[in-house]
């Protein structure tokens, strides 16, 4: 189900932990699986995780499937549903919410014309609500495609960011 390269990468993750604690490598393994699918998938459905992939990863690590499923559904970096080219995750946890996080999400939602959890019709943007990113002092914060963290996202900063992505 996964390429030899991905499996080798997963083996590298497994090697970081004691032999009887393969379970510790589940986050890395799911990330590697997702990256491969994102790069090679032909349809939006093939570019995210699904239960078969999760089960494959679980079996590869010799852990119960539900243990991998718990992890995959806990973190919203793991895409369980198709996402657009740019996945924008806005933190709406309490400290961010007090500093305008909810407003930032609402502003993006209005600007892109999609509700939270939706993908734009052209498949370009997906807007998600995120959990604390550990940067409450920089609130409001958002994450683009899991990797690029953007701080102090006032409406002006959001406009600039979206223009950049466009």
């Amino acid at each position, binding site marked *: 189900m996964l390429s030899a390269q991905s499996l080798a990468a997963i083996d590298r993750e497994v090697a970081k932990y004691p032999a009887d604690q393969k379970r510790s490598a589940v986050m890395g393994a799911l990330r590697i699986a997702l990256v491969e699918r994102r790069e090679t998938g032909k349809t939006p459905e093939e570019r995210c995780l699904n239960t078969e992939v999760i089960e494959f990863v679980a079996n590869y690590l010799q852990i119960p499937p539900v243990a991998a499923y718990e992890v995959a559904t806990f973190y919203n970096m793991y895409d369980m549903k198709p996402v657009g080219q740019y996945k924008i995750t806005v933190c709406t946890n309490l400290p961010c919410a007090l500093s305008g996080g909810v407003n930032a999400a609402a502003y993006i939602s209005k600007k892109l014309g999609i509700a939270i959890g939706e993908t734009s019709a052209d498949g370009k943007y997906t807007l998600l609500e995120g*959990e604390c990113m550990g940067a409450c002092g920089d609130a409001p914060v958002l994450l683009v495609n899991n990797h690029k963290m953007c701080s102090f996202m006032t409406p002006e900063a959001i406009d600039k960011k979206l223009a950049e992505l466009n």
Partner: protein
Amino acid sequence: MLEIEIDGKKLTVPQGSTVMDAAHSVGTYIPHFCYHKKLSIAANCRMCLVEVEKAPKPLPACATPVTDGMKVHTHSDMAKKAQAGVMEFLLINHPLDCPICDQGGECQLQDLAVGYGNSSSRYQEEKRSVVGKDMGPLVSAEEMSRCIHCTRCVRFTEEIGGFQEIGMANRSEFSEIMPYLGKTVNSEISGNVIDLCPVGALTSKPFRYSTRAWELSRRKSVSPHDGLGSNLIVQVKANEVMRVLPLENEAINECWIADRDRFSYEGLNSAERLQKPMIKFDGKWHETDWETALAYVVKGLNGVSADHGKDAIGFLTSPHSTTEELYLAQKLARAFGVNNIDYRLRRSDFSADAAQQGAQWLGSSIAELTAAKSILVVGSTQRKEQPLLASQLRQAVKKGSALNVIHVADDALLTAVNAKLIVSPLALVNALAQVLKAVVEIKSAQSTIDLAAVAASEEAQAIAASLVEAESAAIVLGNVAQHHPAFAQLLKLTQEIAALTGARFGLLAEAANSTGAELVGALPHRAAFGANTAAGLNAAAMIAAPRKAYFLLNTEVEFDSYNPQAAVAAMKQAATVIALTAYKGAGLLDYADVLLPIAPFSETAGSFVNMEGKLQSFNGVVRPLGETRPAWKVLRVLGNMLNLSGFEHNSAEEVRAELLAHGAVESAFNNAIGDVPVNAEAGAGLVRIGEVPLYQADAICRRAQSLQQTADAAVPVARAHSSLLARLNLADGKQGLLRQGTGELKVLVEADDSLPADTVRLATAHPLTVGLGGMFDSIELTQG
């Protein structure tokens, strides 16, 4: 030792104790949901918050280690405020459906909300709702909105069950407890999650909506299924068993019971229960009264004995019967002059009988077995034979014991196995001989058994090293070993290995009262407490050389025999078959001539002797159904009607007292056997692995509907190694034709590479397979 003060009470606790442990040791109750003494600490419900002096905020008692000089207040204003606050949060999404909730009246959340919560909530918004889940036929997860996410069920399946079948998916307010998508919970001890659930999210499917907890009376009893002897609380309403719960006994079942113990009660209320004596004449069954039926039985026994002699009568009894019943059955048989009595219907090798020196048992206490540093289990499916003991062995492995396995199939034991030898039943003796050989080599010792032709494999050497090096070791023989056609040799080899390694050895008792049956002498060669007796025929001999009359106690020979084909044929040729039974099973209706309704364990006083030789007595929890009578009473009256002396007992207690007057129970056990010739050469040929399915082991669980819907009760298929299927030109998932003796069976064939080559694994004791022959005999497999 650390000093701690809890609510002004000073005490010392060992290093590493938590505040919760310390509080329990002085009887201080701290409210909690997620904490459970047998599970790992999660500290996610936050209900056990307490005030600790010098700590800036309340701390969870279950996860806070005691430090020296700690001062804890469990009822201070700070603690109470924290607990009330947590309770308010827990109730935010909890539906107020207590009036229709099964858990109502025995709900921890309900109790603690009254004890530690506020009288009203400030939360006005909409509550979240969670879709119900399907966890299979035993555990209902219909109302998951009630879940408070304590994760006890998750931790149970992972830590006690051995495989995490339940998980918590999603995050924060979207969290849901669920089995893996599309899967059910198939653990053989899954029912315990119902007890663990502190709210009404996980409830018992068979029990749901049948009655209220406060309408039930609680009565103590003992499980009639496996040899562990789990202690039960049987809950009763209007003379009907409504449900079964565990009774905590740390030395035996801890606080758990297997699903078989918990849900088999459905079989007690089965429509198949025999309620009136029945006699067959002119090929038709007629209900009758006890007087007529007993007179018929007496006439039958006297008639056969007059025409053909006493030796023409055979008594076949069940290891699921009580000690008192088995004692009276053997007493009746012997007083009447019949020596043909046996309880070992599923055994095939009796050649150790003459060499036997005492009643066979586990050889140690259960606690000693699980504390052994090295354990060798020979011929046992473990999880399907002894579900709860298998979980205890799993805990033993976690605590550092090495589990070694010699078996006929590479079953998933859900635990780490130190070394294993998986061989065909024909090579089982050879496998054990390999271990003996390796032990002899390590110890540079001599063995009385000729091992010249045996070569110890690497795995055998690993097993031997593990047994020799461990400071305490135990070897136990499971059902497969006991039913094996070379059981005597396996026992002899085990004894030799044990003698050289200092290990304890014994049998994992197949049934609730196998050990009791040994004790009371429901055996052809030994009477009660090993008293000498004129030798009679064993169970196999009574079938191989058919008798004119059979007296069946609690036995359905088509399910309980090593070779159902031969057993049923023997019954059919007999002039009379007298059956004392709780059920009018299809088999009995076919071959029996008179059926006397006897009480199952729930309707009679009695006792079971568990595998460790502990006699546990119990009383009936309900009145006998219809005209059913306790079997000890029936046997006593039969003794009177046959004009035999010594049948004056007025209660089961009197029967027990008479038995126990023979001596102390512990003194009767001895697994040592004398000389048995051993042929360590592995045999060749295609052989059947015919185990008894988990829920076909005894008459009660065969009729428990919910158990019969589980994955473990699925219709048997024939499994064989893919190389064998290829050689026979058979396809995986297609039909094959099996032949044993005069029996043929078309059955689905599945490839299973965990089996040794040249074996076909097909369950016995199932309606589908009753036409086939011996459990571990040769078998033919061809295209169907």
